[in-house]
């Protein structure tokens, strides 16, 4: 079974490809949706095409599926429209798939399930990375606010942090919000560092 993954994000495509390899599929190709990607795809004659539901290029792909004479006409993803749980899971995970007409449902279903799991795993990694990134920038902001307090009020680092924390608690805000406000105010007053 030849599986083509159309994806902008190299990382997500690799995560999916790896999963498919582990499950014993070995005819897998990754095509980024740029330029003449539909012509490339047509030449590959895939059995299954997996694509990010959020990709703006889905309309381009579907147009090719409609007009292509080179391709044994693929049909849309949801091979069995009665399988609503599967469809729901796929849409939630952001997976769309096109499957060549005539391919048995039992053969396709494990591929779709795997794609759903891998897409979900990828989304989780991404949100963790996002959190880590924002934690890092939060710490920078707090550090800068601390040094403003240390300089202007001659506080120790510990006291500066305690002051920020108390202010945040009193105002019902996050420390980083108070720190940001302090930096902004300090910049406006020309006393920034």
């Amino acid at each position, binding site marked *: 079974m030849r599986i083509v993954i159309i994806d902008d994000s190299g990382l997500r495509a690799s995560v999916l490809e790896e999963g498919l390899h582990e499950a014993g599929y070995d005819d897998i190709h990754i095509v980024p949706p740029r*330029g*003449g990607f539909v012509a490339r795809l047509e030449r590959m004659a895939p059995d299954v095409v997996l694509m990010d*539901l*959020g*990709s*703006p*290029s*889905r*309309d*381009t*792909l*579907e*147009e090719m*599926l*409609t007009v292509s004479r080179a391709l044994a006409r693929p*049909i*849309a993803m*949801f091979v069995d429209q009665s399988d*609503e749980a599967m*469809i*729901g899971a796929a*849409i*939630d995970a952001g997976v*769309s798939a096109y499957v060549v007409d005539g391919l048995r449902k039992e053969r396709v279903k494990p591929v779709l399930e795997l794609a759903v799991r891998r897409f979900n795993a990828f989304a989780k990694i991404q949100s963790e990375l996002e959190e880590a990134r924002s934690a890092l920038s939060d710490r920078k902001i707090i550090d800068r606010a601390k040094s403003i307090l240390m300089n202007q009020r001659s506080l120790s680092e510990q006291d500066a942090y305690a002051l920020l924390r108390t202010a945040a608690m009193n105002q019902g805000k996050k420390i980083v919000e108070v720190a940001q406000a302090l930096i902004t105010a300090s910049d406006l007053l020309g006393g920034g560092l």
Partner: protein
Amino acid sequence: MTTGLRIAFLPLTDAAVLVAARERGFAEEEGIALDLVRTTSWATLRDRLVFGQVQAAHMLAPLAVAVTLGLSQQPAALAAPYKLNVNGNMLVMACDFAKALEPVIASRLADPLGTAHDFAAAIGLWRRKPVIGVVHRFSSHAIMLRYWLASAGVDPDRDVVLRVLPPSLTVEAMHAGEIDGFIAGEPWGSAAVEADLAETVAIGERIWRRGVEKVLAFRESWLEENPQTVDRLLRALVRAAAWCDDPAHRDDLTHLLARPDYVDQPAYLIDRALSGTLVARAGEPSIVSPDFMLFGREATPFPWRSQALWIYSQLVRWGMVDHDPDMAARAGAVFRPDIFRRALADSNVPMPGASMKLEGAVAAPLAVGSRRGELTLGPDSFFDKRVFDPERIDEFLSGFAPLR
């Protein structure tokens, strides 16, 4: 009691009424907590609607007809009780290509028939078969482009290449030289002009002066099962549409749409369609087109069945559907004036007495029979002066000369 409702949209200026309904309290006043789901392809918008991730969608009118007739992936019976706008499209072509056309842009746009013939001549001069981007096979834009090209004897399936790509990728594709021009909803044409990649060749409003564009589409079964929610939503949208049409709110609306969670394009580009002041060539003064995009006035939201049938006639003309009375009836039934009437029965919205009309027959503003209030229909003529009689589709179709 508040009802949650999810509606999918594409980042386009003509999502305005939905955005205003959410952001300016019209939905809330009707007890609806509106959640707008930003989507980047028509395929995904359709899937979200058909599989129930959203209850309604900002949909290309021809796509709603095509999905219902089973011409697209994921066939399903859809229903459109409300039109979100008429007009709003623009055809732009690479500046080099446009050199072969009438150089004074105001004259070029005022004479779509002459420009279509100039365009036909320009095809032979271009270095390849011109590649024109369209947002979808079943889009008002593609249908309008085909209609316009064919008027000058250009066969849109043979003499040019129509390439499907989403509105948000049009400018990038122009830049990369993958397409030589495109027809799309605003602000994407303006964005290409602003980048000096293209200039305006035709505007939708001059091709069909009241061209059906986006509808609010529901799954038919959901629409039938939730009459009260549908009625409340339609009442909210009618008020939001009036708000959008009011020039006093334009600045506010422009900035709402510019936000990253909506269209995510500069406010000054979005303003061009809303104010009807188009810059057709970079650096030139703007051209005034007050009917560039309509939301509420002239009973714009009313889903005339004759308009669904006009779309059907064009699908037949281009061989996308077999012509038979059953298909025609199903296509016409996608537009639901009965629901519109029910929802707005107690409002002061002027209500047309009929559900079908001749399309293209109104040359100057015309007061028409209305169940309530004054209703004036704007001019709705086609640039080639043809009139579409929904009761005589065969006659209408046989009036077009074969292209090959």
